[in-house]
């Protein structure tokens, strides 16, 4: 028995680690990788291209790292947070001012959320522009879209929880966007039979107004339902990345003549030669061992994310306005910045801006890999010089057309200012939002006709939407003031 007790530390370690923690050869490193639940998410060897910073920018990993940070800080915040309309605001205030390290942890939660949204958008753009959605990665593109929607859903549900003025009015607006199919059903006089809007709003709020039921529902979605879904889909996403062949790369590129390929013939020892054999230190087909190369890269990205988040959290506090007051709306009542493009669209038509155009955009994004079946151009930014040209042209077209349209709307108003008695369905159909979508679609079709390439027309459309998103978001965040009026700078806002 004494013998066994003496050997306890060693035996305990051996029982935990299935292989070894100190592999010395490539073979042992491979074993160590696939004998570990967490490490075996990645393959034993990765292509060198995977580690190229300028190819992926580590954006998927940054997103994952932010999610880990959000989960950890979120659990800590749950210790003090009370999801009740009477106590929520006070408990967040306590977290901010009383709880040890509370302010810092809340700040990290907020900044990691912002970082995650930024990274997830950029990650999508990277995957799109490198053609990484193409066969066999179509399905993973769809999983990625679902993850994008979940990320935004998590941000949206988290926004209500502090129960301050900002939260209350942003969610009131959000819930009424869910209600906005009524704009269409009312116009068709079918709301009595088919009230999609009312159903969605009641499902979201559990009532007809933002109150205790809504707060509990948002809390459950934010801390349980959406994160669980998210974690599951992230698992699927990573697994498919691996199974679909790792990070995409240009398979047609000429291979490095020094690379060792899968052996098609064997060599005999014809002569004793000086120097290293070609195989030493080089893996088959330009791959390297995941352990340690990929692990180092992953750790670097993770530490980078943590460092950025901590720095931002140290210097900038998460906002907390006055407690929610259903009688006085914030003026202007603004959603978080990534929804302000939508809010700008919503200020033309609630249904089109809040439901119609986002749905069209999501369906369009989902269709991309199934419409563009051209296998060429994978793994190259913009698919080559021609794509790059289309990208720049489309950026210019996208920016000019949306800025011109916004300038027209700000200076001259829209249909209702010209013809006051115009019926609502006309505005729902024809408003700056739908016009810009049509312009972008027309541009993309024109590119398709000119180049006869679905890939290039997809690049054109995606780029236009990206430009539109950026301009509309800046419009909503910077240039809109009280009463959603246009101001060049917040310092010009009227004081009252």
């Amino acid at each position, binding site marked *: 028995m004494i013998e066994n007790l003496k050997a306890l530390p060693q035996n305990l370690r051996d029982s935990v680690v299935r292989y070894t923690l100190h592999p010395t050869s490539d073979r042992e490193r491979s074993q160590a990788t696939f004998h570990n639940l967490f490490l075996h998410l990645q393959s034993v060897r990765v292509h060198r291209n995977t580690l190229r910073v300028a190819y992926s920018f580590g954006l998927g990993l940054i997103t994952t790292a932010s999610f880990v940070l959000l989960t950890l800080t979120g659990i800590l915040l749950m210790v003090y947070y009370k999801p009740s309309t009477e106590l929520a605001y006070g408990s967040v205030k306590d977290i901010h001012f009383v709880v040890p390290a509370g302010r810092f942890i809340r700040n990290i939660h907020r900044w990691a959320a912002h970082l995650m949204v930024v990274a997830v958008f950029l990650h999508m753009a990277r995957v799109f522009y490198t053609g990484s959605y193409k066969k066999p990665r179509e399905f993973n593109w769809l999983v990625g879209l679902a993850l994008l929607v979940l990320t935004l859903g998590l941000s949206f549900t988290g926004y209500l929880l502090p129960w301050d003025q900002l939260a209350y*009015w942003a969610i*009131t*607006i959000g*819930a*009424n*966007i869910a209600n*906005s199919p009524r*704009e269409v059903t*009312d*116009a068709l006089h079918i709301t009595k039979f088919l009230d999609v809007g009312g*159903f969605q709003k*009641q*499902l979201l709020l*559990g*009532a*007809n*107004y933002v*109150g*205790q*039921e809504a707060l509990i*529902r948002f809390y459950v979605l934010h801390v349980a339902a959406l994160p669980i879904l998210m974690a599951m889909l992230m698992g699927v996403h990573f697994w498919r990345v691996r199974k679909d062949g790792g990070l995409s790369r240009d398979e047609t590129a000429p291979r490095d003549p020094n690379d060792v390929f899968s052996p098609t013939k064997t060599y005999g020892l014809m002569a004793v030669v000086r120097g290293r054999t070609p195989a030493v230190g080089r893996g088959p087909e330009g791959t390297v061992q995941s352990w340690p190369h990929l692990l180092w890269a992953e750790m670097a990205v993770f530490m980078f994310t943590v460092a950025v988040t901590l720095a931002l959290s140290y210097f900038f506090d998460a906002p907390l306005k006055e407690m929610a007051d*259903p*009688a*006085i*709306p*914030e*003026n*202007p*009542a603004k959603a978080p910045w990534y929804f302000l493009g939508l*809010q700008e669209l*919503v*200020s*033309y*038509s*609630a249904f089109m801006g809040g439901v119609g155009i986002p749905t069209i955009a999501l369906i369009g994004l989902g269709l991309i890999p199934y419409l563009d079946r051209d296998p060429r151009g994978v793994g190259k930014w913009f698919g080559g010089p021609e794509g790059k040209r289309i990208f720049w042209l489309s950026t210019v077209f996208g920016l000019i057309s949306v800025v011109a349209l916004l300038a027209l709307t700000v200076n001259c*108003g829209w249909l*209702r*200012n010209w013809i*006051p008695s115009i019926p*609502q369905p006309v*505005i*729902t159909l024809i408003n700056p939002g739908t016009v810009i979508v049509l312009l972008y679609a027309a541009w993309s079709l024109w590119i398709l006709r000119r180049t006869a390439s679905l890939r290039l027309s997809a690049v054109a459309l995606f780029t236009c939407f990206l430009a539109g998103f950026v301009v509309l978001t800046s419009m909503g965040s910077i240039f809109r003031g*009280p*009463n*959603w*009026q246009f101001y060049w700078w917040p310092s010009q806002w009227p004081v009252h």
Partner: protein
Amino acid sequence: MFDAGRRDFLGLAAIGSALAALGTALAGVLRLPKPAVLPGPMRVYKLGDPAQFAVGSVVKMDAEQLYLFRDERGFHAISSVCTHLGCIVAHSEREGFACPCHGSKFDTQGKVTGGPAPTGLAWLEVSLSPDGQLQVNGETEVSRGTRFQVG
């Protein structure tokens, strides 16, 4: 016709019945989030003695989310909830109503004159409660221009 061996048939039947059972259970469970009763405060408001409101006065009722008007022709109440996305509109005697959230504008009668609001502001039913108080029903809309005369 459907051609399958006995085992195939039994297998398919088992899978089919399992799916049907799970589907039914899921449908039943998913009814839960749809509220059967909508919670919320009573939306019939008693506003007290009608005589306290002078002719020509406009009163903003915060908790009730409405504006109460009294002119020579009687009382009327206009909901202060914007029909666009539910913000509370501000009122001015000359210009009518303006929404702070997305810039919807309404004339003094609550008709849309600008911005994204799909319909005009709701006119709410005004009546006299049995105990002689002025009463506004936040659930019942009346047609624009309806006035309530006391006595």
